[in-house]
C-alpha cells in the first residue's frame, strides 16, 4: 500500500535538530528558590475581656491587660499594666465573653482582633483557669519563663478557681476548629484565682491543640468569683 520512505539529507538534518532541541529543553530543569519576607507586622499591645452576664445583659464589665512598647517596639521597662486586669464574677452564672486585641502603637488604635478573625484558620486562643485540679490546657512555664503578670510563678497551691471556659466560635477549616474570640464562661462556687489567655499562631499546623506553632500574645487576669 505504501512505498518505501526515503528521507532526504535536509530532512534528516531537520529531524535531528528538532530532536536535539527537544532533549535539550527537557533536560533544562533548573531549580529556583525565593524567600518572601513580610512587608509589615502589626504589634499587639492590649487584650480586653468583655464579660456579659448571659441572664442579665446589663451586667457587663471589661478587663484590660496591656503591655505598651517603646519606639523600638520593645516592651516598656515598667512592664505590663495589669491594674485593670481584674474580673469579678458571680457564682453559678454563665457569661458571654468577647476577647479584644489591639495595637496601641498605631494612631488610631488598630483592631488586631479583626485581623485574627480574618485569619481564624491559623490562630487559636487558649484559656487556663488557675489554680486547677484539671489537666493544664496551657503548659506551665519552665526554666526562666514566668506566667504573665499578675499571675505569680509558680501558682500558689490552693482551692481551684471554679471557672469553665468554652470557646463558642469556629474557624472555616475543613474540620472547623475553635477560635476563642467569643466564649462562654460558666462559674461555680465562690473562689479566687487567675486566668491565663494565650493567642497561638499556628500556620498550617492548627489542629485544635495548644502545641503547634508559636505564641503571639500571653496575658493574665485575676478572677474573683463571689
Amino acid at each position, binding site marked *: *500500500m*505504501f*512505498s518505501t*520512505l*526515503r*528521507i*532526504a539529507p535536509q*530532512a534528516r538534518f*531537520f*529531524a535531528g535538530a*528538532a*530532536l536535539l*532541541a*527537544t532533549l535539550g*529543553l*527537557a533536560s*533544562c*530543569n*533548573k*531549580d*529556583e*528558590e*525565593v*524567600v*518572601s*519576607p*513580610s*512587608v509589615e*507586622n502589626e504589634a499587639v499591645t492590649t487584650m480586653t475581656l468583655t464579660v456579659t452576664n448571659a441572664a442579665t445583659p446589663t451586667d457587663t464589665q471589661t478587663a484590660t491587660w496591656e503591655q505598651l512598647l517603646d519606639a523600638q517596639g520593645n516592651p516598656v521597662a515598667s512592664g505590663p499594666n495589669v491594674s485593670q486586669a481584674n474580673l469579678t464574677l458571680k457564682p453559678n452564672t454563665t457569661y458571654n465573653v468577647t476577647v479584644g486585641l489591639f495595637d496601641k502603637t498605631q494612631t488610631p488604635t488598630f483592631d488586631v482582633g479583626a*485581623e485574627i478573625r480574618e*485569619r481564624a*484558620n*491559623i490562630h487559636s486562643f487558649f484559656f487556663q483557669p488557675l489554680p486547677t485540679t484539671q489537666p493544664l490546657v496551657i503548659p506551665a512555664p519552665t526554666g526562666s519563663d514566668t506566667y504573665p503578670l499578675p499571675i505569680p510563678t509558680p501558682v500558689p497551691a490552693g482551692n481551684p478557681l471554679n471557672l469553665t471556659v468554652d470557646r463558642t466560635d469556629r474557624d*472555616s*477549616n*475543613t474540620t472547623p476548629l475553635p477560635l476563642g474570640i467569643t466564649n462562654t464562661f460558666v462559674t461555680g462556687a465562690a473562689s479566687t484565682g487567675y486566668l491565663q489567655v494565650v493567642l497561638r*499562631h*499556628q*500556620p*498550617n*499546623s*492548627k*489542629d485544635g491543640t495548644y502545641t*503547634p*506553632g*508559636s505564641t503571639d500574645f500571653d496575658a493574665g487576669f485575676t478572677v474573683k468569683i463571689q
Partner: protein
Amino acid sequence: MKFNVAILAAALALPVAGWAQSSPNKSYIGINAGASFATGNFRHTDAENTESGFAKTGFHVALDGAHFFKGGIVGLAGQVAFSDNGRLLADDLTKLGEGYTEAFDVDATTLRATGRYRRLTALVGPTFMFGGDKLKFEVRGLAGINQMLGTPQLTVQLEDDPTNTFTQKSSHSTTFGYSAGIGLHYALSEKLGLVARSDFMGSSPITIKNENRNNTVGRLSEKQPVTAFTATLGLAFTLGQ
C-alpha cells in the same frame, strides 16, 4: 474564546469551500517543530487565581500523519506531540511567596520550585485537505489523550515552623486532549513537502495533588487547565504512489 470559535468556524467552512476544486490528496507522515504559546489561565501569573499556571512560551515538536480515503479531501489524521511550557521563575515565586507570607501571617516564606510543564499528546481526528498540486491547505480537529510528563513542583516553608512545609506536587495526570488547527503544505518534490501549522491545543484540567496542607489558608491549586497555541514548521513525506 473568540479565537477558538474562529478556528472551529474555519475548520467547518473551509473544507466545504474547497471541496469543488482539489487535486488528489496523498497520505503523508511528517515532523514539525516550533513554539508553544501558553494561553489563558495556563499562562496567567495572578497568584490569587488558583488556576493560574505561570506557564511560559516553550517548545513543541510533533509527528503527524494523515490518510486520505481514495485520494479525497477527507482523511483521518493523527499526531503524537511533545510540548514544553517552561518552569517557575524567580519572579513567579516572588508573587506566590508574597501571597503565602500574607495568608499565613508569617515573617517570611521560602519557596522552592523544580520541574517543568511537559506533556505528551496523542490525538486522532478528521482532516480536510484541498488545493492544487503545489500548495494545499489542511484543516483538522483532533482529540485523544493528554499525558502530563510533569508540572513544576512547589515547596513552601513557613518561617515560624521550618519543619512544617507543604508541597504542591508535580502532576502526571492523564486527561482528555484536543486540538484544532490549520496547515499549509508546499510540495518541494513529489515525496517531500514543507508544512506550516498553527493549532490550538487544550486538555481537560489536570489534577494537582498537595501534601501537608493542614489548614484552609493560602493558595491551593488542585486543578490546572492546559491550553496553548502552537506555531510550527516541518516536513511532510508523501506515502503511496
